[in-house]
């Protein structure tokens, strides 16, 4: 069961990051031309391969308990960041992530930037490189950490690869940003899962034990999800009370 959860969390986290990278690449490609944009994408892909190639084998050398504490800690930090933003968005405190709005902003900025005089459009290549590298690095970290702590980077990679095929395929087919992807809900789920994996593995790495072993992962996910939903409800209630009281707060 935990293998399915592992693939699911890798798929969802990768899909969310890839949707964001796709939005940037499409905006740059449409406004500045595809040649330089694809140079940036290829460069970022190459850089990511180097990072994963260096980190992947290094993870195997680390003792599993140490790896689980470090990985669990990193997953907790990542997961709590995702969860915090997801809770604030779901409760209306932060605006929802809007790919269409981001796409329009990227298109406007790319259109206004100076045009190149040489063969390579450095602006387009750099922007595409940064978008793909930064989002891809997050995918690589999640896949390596989640997969590494579980002892199966390949299984986690399968989830990421599936996300690449789905998001990339749909993006190429539609040729526009994927605005209908329930990105905010996916981020909430990923935040819950990364936090749960972090809690689970850091505990095991510290020498603690979960009753029922790996089977405890699902109840931990349920507890974290319910707690996060409780925070959303509390913030919404607080916002409603504030509005009734005349304040202009969430």
């Amino acid at each position: 069961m935990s293998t399915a959860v592992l693939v699911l969390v890798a798929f969802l986290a990768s899909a969310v990051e890839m949707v964001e990278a796709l939005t940037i690449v499409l905006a740059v490609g449409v406004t500045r031309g595809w040649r330089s944009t694809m140079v940036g994408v290829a460069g970022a892909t190459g850089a990511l391969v180097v990072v994963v190639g260096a980190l992947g084998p290094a993870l195997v050398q680390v003792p599993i308990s140490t790896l689980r504490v470090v990985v669990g800690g990193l997953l907790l930090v990542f997961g709590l960041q995702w969860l915090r933003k997801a809770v604030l968005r779901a409760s209306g405190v932060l605006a929802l992530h809007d790919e269409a709005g981001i796409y329009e902003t990227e298109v406007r900025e790319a259109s206004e930037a100076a045009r190149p005089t040489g063969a390579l459009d450095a602006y387009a290549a750099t922007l595409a490189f940064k978008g793909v590298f930064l989002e891809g690095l997050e995918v690589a970290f999640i896949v390596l950490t989640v997969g590494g702590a579980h002892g199966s980077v390949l299984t986690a990679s399968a989830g990421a690869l599936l996300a690449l095929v789905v998001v990339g395929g749909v993006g190429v087919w539609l040729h526009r940003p994927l605005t209908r992807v329930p990105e905010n809900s996916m981020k909430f789920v990923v935040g819950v899962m990364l936090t749960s994996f972090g809690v689970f593995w850091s505990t095991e790495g510290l020498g603690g034990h979960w009753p029922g072993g790996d089977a405890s992962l699902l109840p931990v996910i349920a507890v974290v999800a319910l707690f996060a939903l409780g925070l959303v409800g509390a913030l919404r209630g607080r916002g409603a009370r504030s509005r009734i009281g005349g304040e202009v707060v969430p």
Partner: protein
Amino acid sequence: MTNVARFLRFWYDFVVGDDWTSAVGVAVVLIAGALVPRDATAWVVLVGTAIVVTLTVWRGAARRRAAR
């Protein structure tokens, strides 16, 4: 800014992000989990994480309200 500073800044932004309290909170939770008896580690990490997420969400909401 030197290249080393830029490199460190990149990794700080990448790992810690825009809210350092999560990273500090996780460090405190892990240290506490390591110090208590093994039977209590799971509870300390789980409850500690719940406290950290509550604090960071509350802080994020308060900052947002203050900015409006």
